[in-house]
């Protein structure tokens, strides 16, 4: 029974992780960018949700589920315009710059939003009980929403013209340019998609925790574990690894200590990388 509960909790963690990791791995796969600002984008999604529910009440949360991804997508596009655009093809410098940038944004957020934690209301209150198992309604919504989003992203990448262009750029940016794909436009599209996913993750995670400027830090770290483990740039890898890491985190948190979750997950990822240097699904 305990283990069934651990698995259920693990799957809800996996849902957030998958949303975060999907955006990160897309950016890496298509644009070769390691984006440390991704955690800030999650945090902005959380504050967007707070803004909606504090103005409109519980029903505002439905608005937030649309507004947060949209707002963060715009933020991500601006990020590319102002910063990342200049670091194309310069993976390491881009990564270092993005770390510094995330610090700047996080500190600006402390000044702007202040240090008092905010709460976000959800219309999905209460829990479902099956026998001795407990799952909160909100978490169930998160899992279902994530599954829906993953299928939508999959469909987008497989079956739309833009999606096909994304895959082309992922395989060979230069050749993609030669056949007439505008890689610059595509980089904005990728940032927008990645930002929307982070914003949605922020809005979904918001009711389950306190909203603070550093709320994106731990999810970002866990998302990195996920994409390293899955193989940088691999979408399948990110999804599989999200489930693995989610379950591991749930297990460690329940049986051991929540503080160990991040460190232990990284340790596991490093051990796996020692055997498979490019992750589970990396090339």
């Amino acid at each position, binding site marked *: 029974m305990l283990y069934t509960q651990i698995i259920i909790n693990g799957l809800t963690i996996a849902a957030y992780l998958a949303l975060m990791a999907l955006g990160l791995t897309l950016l890496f796969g298509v644009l070769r960018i390691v984006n440390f600002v991704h955690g800030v984008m999650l945090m902005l999604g959380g504050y967007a949700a707070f803004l909606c529910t504090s103005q409109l009440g519980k029903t505002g949360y439905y608005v937030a589920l649309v507004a947060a991804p949209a707002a963060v997508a715009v933020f991500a596009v601006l990020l590319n315009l102002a910063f990342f655009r200049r670091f194309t093809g310069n993976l*390491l410098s881009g990564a270092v*710059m993005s770390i*510094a940038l995330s*610090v700047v944004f996080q500190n*600006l957020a402390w000044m702007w939003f202040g240090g008092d934690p905010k709460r976000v209301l959800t219309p999905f209150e209460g829990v479902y009980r099956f026998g001795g198992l407990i799952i909160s309604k909100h978490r169930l919504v998160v899992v279902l929403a994530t599954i829906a989003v993953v299928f939508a992203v999959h469909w987008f990448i497989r079956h739309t013209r833009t999606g096909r262009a994304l895959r082309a750029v992922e395989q060979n940016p230069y050749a993609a340019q030669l056949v007439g794909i505008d890689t610059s436009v595509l980089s904005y599209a990728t940032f927008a998609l990645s930002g929307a996913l982070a914003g949605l993750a922020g809005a979904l995670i918001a009711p389950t925790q306190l909203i603070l400027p550093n709320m994106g830090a731990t999810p970002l770290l866990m998302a*990195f574990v996920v994409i390293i483990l899955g193989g940088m740039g691999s979408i399948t890898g990110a999804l599989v690894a999200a489930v693995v890491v989610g379950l591991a985190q749930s297990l460690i948190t329940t049986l051991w200590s929540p503080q160990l979750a991040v460190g232990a997950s990284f340790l596991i990822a490093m051990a796996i990388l020692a055997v498979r240097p490019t992750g589970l699904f990396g090339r």
Partner: protein
Amino acid sequence: MWRYPAYAALGLLTAALLAAPFWLGSYVLHVLMLAFLAVVLGVSYRLLLLGGQASFCHGAFYGIGGYVTAILALRYQIDVWLLTVPAALAAGFCALVLGAISLRTKGPYFFLMTFGFLMVFDSFVSNAQRLTGGYSGLANIPPPFGIGTQWQFYYVILAVTAAIVGLFAYPERTVFGLQIRAIGQSDQLAEALGVSRARSLIAAFVVGAAAAGLGGTFYASYITFVSPNSFSMWVSINALTYSIVGGFDTLLGPTLGAASVTLVPLAFDWSAELVQTLVAASIVAIMMFFPAGLEGIVRRFAPALLEAGPERTRSAGTPPHSPVQRSSAPEPSPGRQPLLEVRDLRFGFGGIRIADGISLEVAEGEVVGLIGPNGAGKSTIFNLLSGVLRPESGSIRLAGEEIAGRPPAAVARSGLVRTFQSTSVFDGLSVFDNVLVAALRAEAEQRPLGSWRPRTTLGGAYEAAEHCLSLVRLGHLREAKARDLPYGAKKMLGLAMALAARPRMLCLDEPVTGLTGHEVQEFIDTIRRLKSEHDITILLVEHRMPVVMQLCDRVYALYSGHICAEGKPLEVANDETVQRIYLGEAGRKRRA
């Protein structure tokens, strides 16, 4: 002209620092000591950056040094002087494990793994309550024996800092120092010349980590307290910041960076958060607008400060044109047994067979051509020969020695050196240094200490580099940066580098593609000269048939994974199968 004022300024600064305890207050002294430790962090971090890699756990190595010192000093009352050794060893060992796991792959994995290592370190020291004291840390760490007051400690840390800066000035003069720069410019090319990428980067990482661990010892002992917070992510960010703010082309960069990042906030009454934000914002701004950092600014306005470095003194000491003729190939061995012997080589990408049982031989002193239509797999065969790809089966023997499956650097060291189809030079190095990388590698491995020898003790390598450069007639451009060369000169430089690596067997991948008619003729003359003077053995992939006709003793024609014709150039050119493949059925009839 600039040099004397620069030295005078340096002398004044040294005197001021030595006299600091006599004229500065306790607080300023304290900040100066922290700045010295920051210099240790910055300088020890730089080698890895030169190799084109960044880590994110330098603060963790500093922390490992600090914690090892704290635990051993408090539990076993061992003196802090002695603890420098286990502190440095522990940090170096962790770097060795981490590097061995993740520096073998290219791309962002290493960076992210070091990030992960920092998280693991932080999680460990925060939670291993009994060993590290958890979040509350360990207090009352004693000073080293014989050190009691702050001013005594000041001199200790000043001396340690000076020693570490001196230590890291040494690799600048060694073969290793040039190799790590070459790897930072192009690891693929460095490996093709026999420089082992992983080994050099791991060495840089481990040495840097050990020095940071040593610094951590003195930090812990001076502050008398360590906690997870002492070695937070900020220490690692800062180590990186020093080189970004200061630049890292020379040791001056991280030193200036560390000093300014540590000391400038002192002049203002800023909160820690504001300092963090400003530091982070300045990293972003500097990376976007001044990629060379403060060092770049110094170079612009006071170049003499940097010219005193080893780069100049060395090239000034070498004669511009050495008369010494040095054979770049070893003496030919008696008998005409094949130097390169490829047997039944098989390889494919997915379902496409690139090599389906390829066998070929090249005898000592022979020039052999490999021709075939586009996509026949010529370049893939080169990649198999040079170790970039691993064959599925078959054998590649060089002078009887099996080299199939060896990594590229090992293949190059055993004597098979290849050039690349596209131009491939170390952009940021001078033309002479480009060739020197190859020549030094060849020379250093025959001597004790190998790459850790000072470059200037290997005079033979300088002569060889000079000779190879004159062979391709680039002697007059020796001081130019390789990136400024025109296309044709870059290709010739690539040839000179391959020659300087002392090949027993040279594999040239489309050496004249993109060259002008005049340059092609010059290339042909050069190869002929090499052949007559040095009896060099060459395997040549080329599309221009006139070049193949003029240079090759024998030719193999490759088609869909098989050797479809072999023989004298004219025989192969007139071969029925070859003509059908190249010209099609109709073309063949017309020619006939």
